[in-house]
């Protein structure tokens, strides 16, 4: 009964998801693979005068201009050095935005219910950007919420800090 098998697979897929695990300052973070288009090495990032401080600059991604975010600055955990960086190209609502990462560890398949909500241990501004936390190979991984990483609220907060 091939139909039954398909149905079962579909159910199974619903309960599982793929995530890309990467490191920033040694700490593991993750993003749902649905939001990740590719990972590219970028050496010529052009800074944009007047842009929010967490924007490293813009790059030429095969003829398209894409903004690159200094993920560490965005998350408030340091700063990325500019010369040569690894950029994770994320697709958020049809928009392409690059996020700097130190290294990409793996693509992992996890059970959807393995993601637990974050506790109040972290401040609210940071929790907003985090979908949840999960345990992978004995380590805690923070799963980032792609839709909130760069939403209007984040931008406004960043701009008000600047002025």
């Amino acid at each position: 009964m091939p139909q039954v098998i398909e149905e079962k697979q579909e159910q199974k897929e619903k309960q599982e998801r793929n995530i890309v695990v990467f490191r920033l300052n040694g700490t593991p973070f993750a993003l749902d693979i649905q939001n990740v288009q590719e990972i590219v090495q970028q050496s010529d990032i052009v800074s944009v005068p007047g842009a929010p401080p967490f924007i490293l600059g813009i790059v030429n991604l095969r003829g398209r201009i894409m903004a690159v975010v200094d993920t560490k600055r965005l998350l408030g955990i340091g700063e990325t050095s500019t010369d040569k960086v690894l950029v994770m190209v994320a697709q958020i609502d049809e928009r392409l935005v690059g996020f700097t990462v130190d290294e990409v560890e793996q693509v992992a398949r996890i059970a959807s219910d393995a993601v637990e909500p974050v506790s109040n241990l972290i401040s609210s501004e940071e929790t907003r950007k985090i979908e949840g936390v999960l345990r992978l190979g004995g380590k805690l991984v923070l799963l980032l919420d792609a839709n909130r990483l760069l939403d209007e609220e984040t931008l406004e907060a960043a701009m008000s800090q600047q002025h």
Partner: protein
Amino acid sequence: MVELSQDELELFVTEAEENIANLENGLLKLEREGDAALVAELFRYAHTLKGSAGAAGLVEMSQLAHAMENLLDEVRNGKRNVTSELVDTLLECVDVLRAMVLALRDGEKQPDPSLLVRKLSAFSEEQRNQSDTSDQKVSMSSGEICATLNIFIKPECQMPSARAFQAYLIMSRYGEITFLDPPVSEIQAGRAKYRLVAQVKLPDDNSLSEMEQELTRFGDLVVEVQRQKDGQKISEIVTAQREVETSAAPQAELQSVRVSIEQMDALLNLVGELVIERARLERGVRKVAELNGNGIAEELQGVTERVSRIVSQLQEALTRTRMVPLNVVFARFPRLVRELARSMNKRVQLKIEGEDTEIDRALVEKLNECLVHLIRNAIDHGIEPPDERTAAGKPPEGLIEISASQSEGSVIVVVRDDGRGIDPNKIRRKAMERGLLTEEQASSLNDDDAIQFIFRSGFSTKEEVSEVSGRGVGMDAVKAAMEQIGGTIDLHSQIGAGTTVTLRLPLTLAIIPALLVRVGGRLFALPMHSVTEVLDLQRSDIQEIGTGEKVLVLRGNPLPLFSLAKLLGIPNGGTEGTGVIVRQQEKLIAMSVEGVKGKDEIVIKPLGYPLHNLRSFIGATILGDGSIALIVDLNGLTIRR
């Protein structure tokens, strides 16, 4: 209701919109110069609309068109005079018809026209009682027959569209055409090819054979007549006919396709990339030529040249596809002028010229905004009331002329009125009241320069605030809108004789000429339309004023001098030895840069999220070597020391 396929729906909507627009324009003309030919033309539009709506199963739309047709028929037969009231009522129908078509296109609920239909028949009724007439042309009589005609135009026919139109005229003389494919509008647009399908309601068999004879008299027409069986519904036949047509006509018959703007932009982007790669290719080939003097380099150069040419042509052709005729903007103005003039008790005639001039679709909205504003100003502030005009020895009816043309990569739109003109003394007074000018300055200012003060924000000279022009937004808003799309505005006025406003805007927004300058050790692009001059600062007269502010004296004019690096907030990367004079708002300012690399045609690419709101840059462009240059928005740049 007949279920229409998406294609049929689109076809119907396009056709109906065209007929409605023709009706509207015709009605506006009718009020002015009501001649018999025009009434007949209007009757035909209503009639065609009735037919196609009926065929599409849109009973209510068909009824409304029919009611209009009846009224127009009465005008045609001389039973009714053209009055403003009649035109008003018919224009109201046009609005409802348009709303119905829009609702149909968007799959929304149809507005109910029954009230209007009743109003129209009451209109008709009232007239009929007065004139007591019994003959009504568009009614069914017992001997009436219906025939379907398949008319083939032989390939040797030199002008198939003209022939098709002749056939259409003949058929409409003999009877009522209830269906025609291609529709009249298509035929008139020269898009009839080899076949015409018509359904004609005729008074009797005799007229059918006469009509057939007259049609076959043209040697290059083959006519097939099929008399309709009794009891068969017209709509059934029409639908069947349409199906036959659709299956019979090959796809290649389609003359145009709809492409979304996003798709167009994607294509344009690809071509933009191709342009960039072309530059790289050319450079590579030059290098090969330097290294290797024999045949290979020459051959490569030949190929590169051809590829370059093709890329240029491709770029041009694609940019063309984004162009639309200015008619899309101008078409709404006759109605606007009529309504505004009436509300202000003025008489205004509108003349439009050059509506075929093409413009980038992306500019349409802003241009429309500006023109609507200028028209309002002309009617409100410019054109005098009829008695005042007569007293001044002018014809009681004012004139507004809008003309468009293309020259040297720009589109020029001129709006001219023959009204009272702008009084430079009023402007001087106002500018003094506002503290913009001292009395001394005001008196030394020539008239032309004084008038330019109306471009200052918040400047308005009409004493009382009228409902139409309102307060606050004025010429400054028009100027800002024009600058946003890289255009300029020029105004001349002669008191008593009228005002002329000239708008100059770029043909396209996607590719612009730009000056590449070096700032902070890297390249930035400045749109050429803002740049007026480039000069060597070492040889220029630069003076320092007390607080370290610099002034460049250019041919006797002192211009403030800024460092572009400082304005952008970046450290400079060397001696700023070159000056660029740019236009910012209405003033000229000088900017110092580290050098100029040259002029180039650049493709504007959006900075993308989350940098889309940055005011200092229009976007970025990718240069020949693959590097990025930000394009400075000279109007968005904040000027500070």
